[in-house]
């Protein structure tokens, strides 16, 4: 039968040549080193931010709205004046806005899984944890953007850090390191749950109450004692204390150590779990 030939009567010879050439000229280079592979995945993270900037909008707009709302609605009542309240709340808002972005680490790993990209990555001859480590790089950029947005808004509204820019940067660095630890919790969740939306909902369901039951918004001295006890041991409170301390220039080293220790424990438990589950996914 002639139909097969007729179906592409003007098959461009150039395309066919290009194909044969492309198939011939692909010598396999030396394998990518783990660092190269992780950097390539980091680059992917940047591209995602460029192509899907909405992911940043969600997580920066919410904290900005909280800053505005709390400062101007409750600030007077809680701290006597909006100006004073802004001085109290802003370092905590930095913590909140960056921690919110960590949920996206879980959302994006789940998206990859449901779309089938993970199969491709896992079938490549690269260092197997590279996609996870590389994602940390993209995450860092997101954390820094979220942190910068909130600090800029604070500055515009009149927030001034006693310890100056150095204090702000130290606080930001600590928050970013803590977020690395926390993000492993969400990547584990991302590998366990069925859909990106489920991860998002469950993630925020966890992190929202934890943030509200911390000292981010109010001084725990004013709380009933049982609640106060919880708020005081909540790692988010400790991180917020450290962040306030850095910006005010009177940081307690115990707060910094506890925050770093929590991050280390979260990483030690959830990073291997994520890696193992990713390999089996």
């Amino acid at each position: 039968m002639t139909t097969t030939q007729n179906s592409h009567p003007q098959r461009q010879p150039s395309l066919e040549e290009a194909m044969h050439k492309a198939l011939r000229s692909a010598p396999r280079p030396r394998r990518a080193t783990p660092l190269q592979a992780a950097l390539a995945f980091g680059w992917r993270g940047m591209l995602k931010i460029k192509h899907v900037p909405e992911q940043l909008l969600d997580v920066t707009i919410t904290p900005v709205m909280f800053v505005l709302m709390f400062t101007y609605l409750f600030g007077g009542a809680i701290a006597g004046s909006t100006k004073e309240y802004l001085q109290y709340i802003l370092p905590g808002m930095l913590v909140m806005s960056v921690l919110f972005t960590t949920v996206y680490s879980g959302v994006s790993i789940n998206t990859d899984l449901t779309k089938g990209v993970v199969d491709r990555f896992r079938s490549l001859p690269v260092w197997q944890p590279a996609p996870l480590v590389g994602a940390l790089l993209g995450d860092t950029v997101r954390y820094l953007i979220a942190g910068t947005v909130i600090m800029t808004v604070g500055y515009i509204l009149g927030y001034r850090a006693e310890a100056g820019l150095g204090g702000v940067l130290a606080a930001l660095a600590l928050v970013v390191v803590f977020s690395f630890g926390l993000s492993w919790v969400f990547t584990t969740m991302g590998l366990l749950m069925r859909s990106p939306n489920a991860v998002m909902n469950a993630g925020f369901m966890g992190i929202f109450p934890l943030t509200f039951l911390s000292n981010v918004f109010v001084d725990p001295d004013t709380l009933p004692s049982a609640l106060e006890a919880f708020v005081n041991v909540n790692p988010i409170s400790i991180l917020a204390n450290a962040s306030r301390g850095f910006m005010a220039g009177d940081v307690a080293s115990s707060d910094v150590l506890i925050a770093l220790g929590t991050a280390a424990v979260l990483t030690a438990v959830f990073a291997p779990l994520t890696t193992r589950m990713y390999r089996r996914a």
Partner: protein
Amino acid sequence: MSSLAIEASGLEKSFGDTKAVNGVDLAVRRGSVYGVLGPNGAGKTTTIRMLATLLRPDGGSARVLGHDIVEDADRVRGAVSLTGQMASVDEDLTGRENLILLALLLGFSRAQARSRADELLEAFGLTEAATRQVKNYSGGMRRRLDIAASLVVTPELLFLDEPTTGLDPRSRNQVWDIVRALRESGTTVLLCTQYLDEADQLADGIAVIDRGKVIAEGTPGQLKASVGSGSLHVRLLDPEQRPEAQRLLAAALGDDAVHPDPDPAALTAACPDADRGAEVVAELIRAGVRIADFALGQPTLDEVFMALTGRPAEETGEIELQEQAA
């Protein structure tokens, strides 16, 4: 070096109570295109995922290009590529970015990665779409990009899982051309498909798989021969003439071969080949039967299954349900 690209014996994989793959043996020659043919749920994807080291088998063993898929998984990954059933490219990135990413991951420098990406985009007719996000690609473009992504370095063995399901005929032909070009370049291809004609067009050897087992194996010719034939479909201008046409067809092709269609003016008959089909149609016309149209077709997967298993190809789950009900 073994002349076999894939040697699998007794591969098994279960998910909970489902035995997805239940003792698959395969022997695929280097440089050939090998078709794995089976209906939904037969275990094709699970088999491929085990061979590509994405799933660990529960039982049995396999060597891919001489490397054990469990012990030497990393070596296997260094020599094969996989184009999965689900598009395995990043939809948020552009086509070009996807290819550059893979090239970087395979060890190319930035400059090499860019030029390799452009070369592939051109070869796959995607240059114009290169800077568009993949989520805006058509099904055919996405498939081609997905295959291109597997060819950033020409693999010794390519796994292709249902590469043309859901494509229009033109896109399907483009994919077929790619597979032919790959074969010429010496790459072994393991092709999963639900379409007998696809396997027939492309494959040197075919395994038919059903409920996790290989139920038949051979060249496309052998397989079609074992099924008997293709089919001749005749539609008459005048339904009144159908009994006469049926008598003539039965005389020419055998009593068992002919069955009336649901369409009162149509008949279908098993027919060994195109020549014989043409002769039979000519006989009908000489006898005065007026024919509206006729078609000669290859046996469908359904007919293959009917011949091999005595039941139509159906999703495994459904069959189990029916058996339980019975």
